[in-house]
């Protein structure tokens, strides 16, 4: 066999046509996750269905714990992780919200659990389609949060997430998110890597706690006082010190996230910007579109047309949402003129979360860029190229006029199609 033929055979062996959900499942299989506990929810369910298949076929030696709710699923994950096992689950929307109570426990105990989130909008009204509302609600609990743009990235980010989360300098849980249906149910070629190379990249977990050894650790999480406790058996930190440590580890994890991303890139030949954000045609650009996931994918199409109009425009697609990479973003945006943010979410009662967080991060710059935020695509409404183009034009126009506002601006609303909508058909008023 010639070298080229050998390479071809290797590729054929490893490239598969996979949905985003199945890409995540394959990553779990190859990461050799030990315990999985999950509850079905659309559009995530195929992740854990596939994992259950792998276990049944003997391709993954893991324990799949069936539970009655997402709250229990993450409770099982926390307990299993505390015994020193590699642990993961997957969920969407209200599943994540039901897990919410357990999320800060996982972070506070520094348990390196991985959740795959196929994003889905929150009810009411009931919807199963994508937006990033679920993803943003957990931003204040201490998890590392990644957003992906294609199925290969889902697979790669999962493998990186385990390594980052399990790093002794980190020990934090992480969530890998991707748009429901747009990625979760769309098939793309995904290169699955050689198992030996993955084992080398991702050695077995060496956990800081290991409840399976009762002679070492009797339990975790005693009532922790506001003050430091000094006893003959040893000094114990107060709650405040634990939470300081959690925050500082999150802040410093950005360096480790970059490090692991670079190591992955060297080993497997694929990279995603700097592991924090991806730049698309930003070299000569004075105007930047700032977005996440499916929205930045669509913006890639929009900037082609906008560049034909003569605009010097590029995209920054945020990959790492928490810890928020304020230093990196400040450094990147310091000599840009205009930023147009497209949020597939709302911090209800204020504005799009990406928009207001970026404004806050850039506040310390001497010369601040113009920033305008738009809301797009809630509840799976298509984010179209023309919406992004309209948004860019409108924002640039407002900047020229010196209009700056925090009020939300919705793109792609179809109120014009509601002329015959009569609510009294549905609701009787007394």
């Amino acid at each position: 066999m010639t070298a080229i033929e050998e390479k071809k055979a290797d590729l054929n062996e490893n490239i598969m046509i996979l949905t985003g959900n199945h890409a995540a499942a394959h990553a779990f299989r190859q990461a050799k996750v030990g315990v999985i506990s999950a509850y079905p929810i659309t559009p995530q369910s195929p992740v854990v269905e596939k994992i259950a298949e792998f276990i049944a076929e003997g391709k993954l030696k893991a324990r799949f714990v069936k539970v009655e709710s997402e709250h229990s699923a993450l409770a099982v994950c926390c307990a299993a992780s505390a015994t020193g096992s590699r642990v993961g689950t997957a969920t969407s929307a209200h599943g994540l919200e039901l897990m919410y109570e357990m999320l800060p426990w996982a972070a506070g105990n520094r348990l390196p659990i991985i959740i795959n989130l196929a994003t889905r909008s929150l009810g009411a009204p009931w919807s199963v389609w994508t937006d990033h509302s679920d993803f943003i609600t957990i931003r204040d609990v201490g998890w590392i949060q990644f957003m992906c743009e294609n199925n290969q990235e889902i697979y790669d980010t999962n493998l990186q997430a385990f390594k980052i989360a399990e790093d002794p300098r980190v020990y934090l849980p992480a969530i890998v998110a991707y748009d429901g249906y747009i990625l979760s149910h769309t098939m793309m070629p995904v290169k699955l890597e050689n198992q030996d190379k993955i084992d080398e990249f991702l050695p077995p977990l060496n956990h800081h706690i290991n409840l399976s050894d009762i002679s070492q650790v009797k339990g975790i999480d005693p009532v922790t006082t506001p003050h430091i406790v000094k006893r003959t058996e040893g000094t114990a930190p107060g709650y405040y010190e634990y939470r300081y440590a959690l925050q500082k580890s999150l802040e410093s994890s950005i360096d480790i996230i970059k490090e692991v991303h670079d190591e992955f890139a060297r080993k497997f030949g694929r990279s995603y910007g700097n592991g924090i954000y991806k730049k698309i045609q930003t070299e000569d650009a004075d105007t930047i579109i700032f977005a996440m996931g499916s929205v930045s994918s669509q913006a890639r199409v929009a900037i082609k047309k906008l560049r034909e109009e003569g605009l010097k425009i590029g995209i920054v697609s945020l990959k790492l949402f928490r810890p928020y990479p304020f230093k990196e973003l400040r450094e990147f945006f310091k000599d840009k003129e205009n930023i147009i943010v497209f949020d597939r979410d709302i911090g209800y009662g204020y504005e799009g979360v990406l928009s207001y967080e970026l404004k806050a991060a850039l506040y310390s710059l001497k010369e601040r860029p113009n920033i305008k935020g738009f809301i797009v695509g809630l509840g799976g409404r298509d984010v179209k190229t023309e919406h992004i183009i309209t948004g860019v034009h409108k924002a640039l126009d407002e900047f020229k006029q010196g209009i700056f506002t925090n009020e939300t601006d919705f793109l792609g609303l179809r109120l014009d199609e509601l002329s015959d909508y009569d609510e009294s058909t549905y609701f009787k008023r007394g």
Partner: protein
Amino acid sequence: MTDSKKDYQKILGSVQKPVIGEAGKTGTWSSKKPIIDLSKCTPVKSGKPSCFNCWLYCPEAVVSRTIPPQIDLEHCKGCGICMEECPVKAITMEEVKSE
């Protein structure tokens, strides 16, 4: 904290270790104290490690599994469960005199 690890990297999970008097001197809470009549106590009478219901049932783990059983009055909350459980009624609860 002298080694190269940053201070926050040394504080990870809140871990439980069994200690005496985690909640302070709980013995000061009680209004009654258990007194064991050793002439009735089964392990003392038999001279063999036996019965130990007081040790088994004490919710505060202040009774020792020894002959004779010892009660740590500094941490005994005076609940009276040992008196209730003692099969030979060797334990009585006596009033604590307030000073």
